[in-house]
């Protein structure tokens, strides 16, 4: 058995284990929608933490972080992790706890139910439905692209006669299909409880295996000190936020050596992060306030106090997950094999493959297979929750909301929800085949930009009595309109590839979109009639 076949064996065993968890959790299924979609609101603090964290971390955190660190250096940690460490917890505390309490009090199972009630508007749900589904798709896309890329890279050599084009590796199209199919299956068996259990297992797997990966790769590179020293000599700008003239000189010198054939590693061009760009990443973490799949997990909490552990431990778990990936991505810029050849080839088409390549070439075969299981764990723990939430919002906000209660049997309602989920999964899979070269990191930032632009709506709904129905419409429509225009502009300019970050007036597009949506909501709310007293009493009067 060669190393590729061993990796296939480990991955297959892992996927079978996930299916078993789904089947096992099905034995606890009580047969009600509340149990399928919110686990009868009975999840304790530890499983809540694991499922919320596992859901938030996807291939963006594993594949995207290492790819971006390889491309642009350590700045990715500050852009994403330390901002998120602060503001994810702020959102869990200010938004999650309150929404959980309203969900408990009024029986909400989806975000749209809350917004319909809060703004006394049925049609607002029809506006939010495509917005939320449309934003979950790129999130799913990141997962499928990341998982399929990782499997294709790590299984090279497994079946050379069968898959010549990928040097024997399981091809992207097959790996993506299998990952989608397995996730859909265990989700359909176990509902949100199955997803929460699987997420707990998978979060433990990817945090532990991430640290193991780090230790193994560091050891193969001569230890962490030697690995960082190698980067300092070849690509010093990758170890800081801003490049200097001295870094440019080092780059020119190293490039001359590479072109003369005296050095085997091609240096990376020094990358400068403008302070305004670094700062405006502050808006990205507010996206969690509007993730529908996260809302679903919030509602599963047995008690409001369960959120305490999430608020405290989430930044620590993020740090434990991202730090090894960022360091491995930076080390990859200067990593050499024992024979002196570069680990990452000079001509690399797709930076998403950096981490799988480091694992494939540097880790022992069995550990390599386990590490890919860890990568899959991070990805599938998000995919499962997103599939569940798609079924939930379609079932609750469209089918149950618009079709009279007795016209469809319970079984048919669930079947419709599952069919909708399968359709979205197929669309996502086809999009993944078309956009496999897109940077997972860039794709993620755009997806989070969309969700963050809707965050002013949920903050206002919970904390600003004066926000009106018309203000809510203005917020969503502006977020959609401005976001779509910026995305099309960015896609036409960069195709979401390459080293260049798309900026508007020198700042991240998310800053423009959040500002526009907030302004539209405030101005329109102040120009329109305040909400009725009974609505305000329902959401702002002290709870009895």
């Amino acid at each position, binding site marked *: 058995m060669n190393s590729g076949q061993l990796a296939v064996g480990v991955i297959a065993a892992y996927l079978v284990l996930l299916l078993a968890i789904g089947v096992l959790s099905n034995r606890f299924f009580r047969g009600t929608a509340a149990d399928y979609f919110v686990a009868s609101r009975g999840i304790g603090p530890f499983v809540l933490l694991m499922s919320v964290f596992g859901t938030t971390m996807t291939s963006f955190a594993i594949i995207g972080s290492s790819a971006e660190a390889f491309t642009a250096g350590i700045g990715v940690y500050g852009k994403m992790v330390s901002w998120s460490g602060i503001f994810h917890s702020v959102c869990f505390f200010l938004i999650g706890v309150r929404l959980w309490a309203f969900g408990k009090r009024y029986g909400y199972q989806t975000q749209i139910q809350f917004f319909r009630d809060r703004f006394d508007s049925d049609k607002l749900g029809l506006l939010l439905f495509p917005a939320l589904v449309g934003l979950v798709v790129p999130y799913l896309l990141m997962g499928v692209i990341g998982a399929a890329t990782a499997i294709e890279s790590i299984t090279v050599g497994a079946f050379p006669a069968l898959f010549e084009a990928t040097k024997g590796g399981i091809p992207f199209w097959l790996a993506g299909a299998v990952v989608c199919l397995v996730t859909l299956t265990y989700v359909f068996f176990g509902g949100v409880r199955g997803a929460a259990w699987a997420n707990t297992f998978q979060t433990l797997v990817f945090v532990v295996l991430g640290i193991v990966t780090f230790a193994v790769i560091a050891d193969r590179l001569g230890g962490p000190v030697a690995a960082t020293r190698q980067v300092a000599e070849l690509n010093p700008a990758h170890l*800081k936020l801003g490049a200097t003239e001295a870094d440019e000189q080092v780059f020119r010198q190293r490039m001359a050596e590479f072109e003369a054939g005296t050095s085997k590693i091609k240096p990376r061009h020094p990358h400068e992060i403008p302070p305004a760009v670094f700062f405006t990443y502050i808006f990205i973490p507010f996206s969690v306030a509007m993730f529908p799949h996260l809302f679903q997990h919030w509602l599963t909490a047995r008690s409001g106090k369960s959120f305490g552990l999430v608020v405290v431990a989430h930044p620590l778990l993020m740090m434990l997950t991202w730090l090894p990936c960022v360091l491995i991505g930076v080390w990859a810029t200067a990593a050499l094999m024992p024979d002196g050849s570069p680990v990452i080839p000079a001509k690399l088409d797709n930076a998403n493959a950096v981490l799988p390549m480091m694992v494939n070439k540097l880790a022992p075969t069995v550990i390599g297979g386990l590490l890919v299981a860890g990568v899959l764990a991070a990805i599938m723990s998000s995919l499962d929750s997103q599939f569940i939430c798609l079924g939930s919002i379609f079932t609750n906000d469209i089918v*149950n909301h618009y079709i009279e209660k007795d016209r469809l049997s319970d079984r048919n309602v669930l079947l419709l929800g599952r069919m909708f989920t399968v359709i979205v999964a197929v669309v996502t899979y086809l999009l993944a085949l078309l956009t496999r070269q897109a940077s997972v990191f860039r794709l993620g930032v755009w997806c989070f930009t969309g969700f963050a632009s809707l965050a002013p709506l949920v903050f206002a709904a919970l904390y600003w009595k004066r926000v009106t129905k018309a203000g809510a419409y203005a917020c969503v429509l502006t977020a959609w309109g401005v976001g779509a225009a910026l995305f099309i502009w960015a896609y036409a300019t960069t195709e979401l590839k390459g080293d260049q970050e798309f900026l508007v007036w020198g700042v991240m597009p998310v800053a423009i979109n959040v500002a526009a949506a907030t302004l539209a909501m405030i101005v329109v709310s102040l120009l329109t009639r305040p909400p009725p007293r009974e609505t305000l009493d329902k959401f702002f009067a002290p*709870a009895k």
Partner: protein
Amino acid sequence: MKYVIYALLLLLIVLHQDFWNWHRYEPLIFGFIPVGLAHHVGISLAAAVVGGLAVKYCWPAGVDVADSARAANTPERKGRA
């Protein structure tokens, strides 16, 4: 205490910008973590501490009411499966 938490959040935002390490990577913490990266790891740790203070001293009162009523049936909306 609420205002202390706000002040700490503001401090974290200011510290995040990290101008002082922008153009240097040394000292390498533990010999391998660039100082700018270590600074941001410190912010992650500090965020957990501030979160802990918020949970301990600023917990929203209405949530406890929802908690105390959790034995009662939550009115699930159109609960069908």
